């Protein structure tokens, strides 16, 4: 099923023409999907976040590769916790605003930024610095709103191995371009939380119930959420006590951003920042096994540049 027919179903459902909530199936068109011959990983190191983001996006061929004029773009940061920018539990606001600016330059019609936080959402949006930064852009096309409980739709995950069905956020599924902007940090049960785990922010339901078999289910969620672009914020990373953190003593400054179109490869490279191997993170392995991308870094083309 493609996005167009999906939107049609949502419209019918919203109009009350379908009495039973439809179960969407996004997984059919995955089977035929082929990985490119090589997965590119772009790494920028430096202090100037806007310049690093621009450099990475340019290296990938520019934002127009991902965004066409009038597109609805979803930028999905991690706004999970009521923590300050320095505490490293959320995506850095400058990364988010830089991506939003580039998307605007590419002619985006609307840019939606949202996450489903673990702490009280207003506090997270505010203290992460993300909502104030986006509001300060003063552009009506940039919308940083809290997620609307009414917009979760059930999705059937046909080739899911641990998870067969879950509810997803409609705007995330319907986006013309989905940019995943996680923050890299330690996570008690998943090992690390990177790009793949960030999909947990666009799903409904009681997410705690996923933890009984967390890594396979993270991979299953990524069968549905297929980012066009993943950019991992590793400007500062939480080494311990993640995902919520809370102490600067657990934060290490890395001044690094990692980007790519292969979500598994980007996660695999980011894992090395923690002195771990890609295979140490089970969600990466599970995603690789589902054909979502490469995890062997020797099969990837890595470009590292100082900005």
């Amino acid at each position, binding site marked *: 099923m493609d996005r167009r027919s999906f939107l049609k179903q949502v419209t019918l459902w919203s109009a*009350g023409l379908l009495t039973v909530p439809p179960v969407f199936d996004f997984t059919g068109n995955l089977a035929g999907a082929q990985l490119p011959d090589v997965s590119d990983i772009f790494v920028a190191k430096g202090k100037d976040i806007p310049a690093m983001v621009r450099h990475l996006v340019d290296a990938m061929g520019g934002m127009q590769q991902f965004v066409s004029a009038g597109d609805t773009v979803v930028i999905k940061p991690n706004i999970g916790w009521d923590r300050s920018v320095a505490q490293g539990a959320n995506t850095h606001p400058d990364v988010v605003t830089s991506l939003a600016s580039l998307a605007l330059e590419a002619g985006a019609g609307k840019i939606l930024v949202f996450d489903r936080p673990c702490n009280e959402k207003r506090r997270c949006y505010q203290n992460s610095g993300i909502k104030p930064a986006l509001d300060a852009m003063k552009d009506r096309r940039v919308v940083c709103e809290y997620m609307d409980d009414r917009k979760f739709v059930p999705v059937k995950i046909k080739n899911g191995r641990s998870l067969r069905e879950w509810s997803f956020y409609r705007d995330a599924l319907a986006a013309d371009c989905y940019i995943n902007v996680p923050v890299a940090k330690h996570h008690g049960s998943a090992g690390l939380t990177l790009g793949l785990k960030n999909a947990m922010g666009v799903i409904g339901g009681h997410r705690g119930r996923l933890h009984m078999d967390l890594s396979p289910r993270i991979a299953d969620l990524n069968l549905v959420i297929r980012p066009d672009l993943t950019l991992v914020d590793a400007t500062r990373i939480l080494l311990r006590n993640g995902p919520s953190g809370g102490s600067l003593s657990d934060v290490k400054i890395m001044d690094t951003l990692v980007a790519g179109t292969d979500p598994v490869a980007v996660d695999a490279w980011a894992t090395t920042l923690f002195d771990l191997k890609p295979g140490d993170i089970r969600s990466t392995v599970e995603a690789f096994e589902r054909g979502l991308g490469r995890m062997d870094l020797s099969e990837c083309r890595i470009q590292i540049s100082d900005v």
Partner: protein
Amino acid sequence: MGDRIHVAGKSDPTALSRTTRIRLRRARIAVQLICLALFLWLFRITEYTGADTIPWAVNLWFRLDPLVAASVTLATRTVVTLLWPALIVIAVTWVLGRVFCGWVCPLGTLIDLWGRVVQPGKPRAASFRFLKYAILILVLVASMFTMQLTGFFDPFSLLVRGMTFSIDPVIHFLVTGMFDWIYLNGPVWLSGVTEPVYDFLKAVVLPYAQQLFFLSMMSFLLLAAVFFLELAGPRFWCRNLCPLGALLALVAKVSPFKRIPQKVCSDCDLCRSACLMDAVDSHGRVRTEECTLCLDCLVFCPRDITTFRFTGPRSAPGMDIRRRQVLAAGLAGAALPVLTWTNAVSSLPDHRVIRPPGALPETDFLAACVRCGACMKVCLNNALQPLFLEQGVAPMFTPVLVPRLGYCEFNCTLCIQVCPTRALQPLDLAEKQAFVMGMARFDKNRCIPYADQTPCLVCEEHCPVHDKAIKLETVEIHDRTGQVVQLKLPYVVTQRCIGCGICEHVCPVQGPAGVRVESRSEVMDESYYSY
């Protein structure tokens, strides 16, 4: 009101003109409506709005309330400086009489508005005025014995609680229910019209999120009773029951500002029959302590001779309560505290009574808390809930954390900020984050890794305390098929846990959580962990 009748010899050169009379009365109504609007606005902004501090909150009304100030001072034996505005109300009442009741009190204004709807008859001959004094004496004497009963009778406690626990959630439920139904089931063009209206209402009128409270029905019925009594006569509550009105009446008794003439005219009974507060007694004398200066009599006087003037504190006729009634109320006020001390809960406190951050030790907390509901109103996770009878009658409506409904947000101090009586002690953020409300305990029969040998650890993820009050220990176990598997088991670091309840809140176990917070009263008892 009727035609003006000019009677030679009775006219006063300083008498007010007809227009002035009407304007003064209108001014009173305008002030009432402004104060009601102020109350509603303060009620609405008693909420998280993006800033960590709330400069203004609905607690202003409790800080103005001399009944709260008196009972808290007596019960806690401390002077709570936060309550200084109550002195303004006392001073104004001493100078001008009960203007607070007639011009300011939002409950009084709401009762007046309601009175226009139900059109109560004239006040009945039988008077229950002694009751308000009896309630005042009961409350204050009980306060001397540290029992805090103000919250059951204080007009603002009744009003704010009723609005917080029942009226506000009901309005929100109905409005969002309607708009959500249209959004989910109506045609797209219709929700295109209704959603902007909904957004506007959300921004201006509605609370941010749907709050749900225990005791919603009970709080509603208590508040509704005040309005229901209006059927028995105008301002029935204010005249006969309100202990704040009684306290202000005692002060107004010596006020030098009096209604002139102080005795009704021999040929006219209007002052007596038309006064809504029934402030003119059967002998035709104006009872200064009952007059709320509503100024109705300026307008309805057919001779335009009524006025208000400083005449000096002439002693007025006696009180509306008899000596025996004073004695009975005082004895009741002394007896009730003893009944609470001899209740078995005093030696078996409920381990689920988890007080908000900053709460005084339990006995002092119960003495200081006036059950106003402001902390529960402002709690951004809807985690604070009113207690029912778990701890006996007296602590009813006091706030407790119910982690299964919501947890205490680590970086939030709003409840502390809105507490008018310092029952929640002022703490800065670092102190609040170290304040121990309770302690989490794992129930290994319910916790998933222990009970089902399945990974989970949602609690550990969410624990906000630095270096985690919930830690993991990796163990190798023989699972139930005999295989050796590695498993991460959570445990509580008791020295670090503050009892915020987020672990219990997010625990995926259905029904009672696998990790539950127990109250500080037990935790703080050192013998509890010395086994």
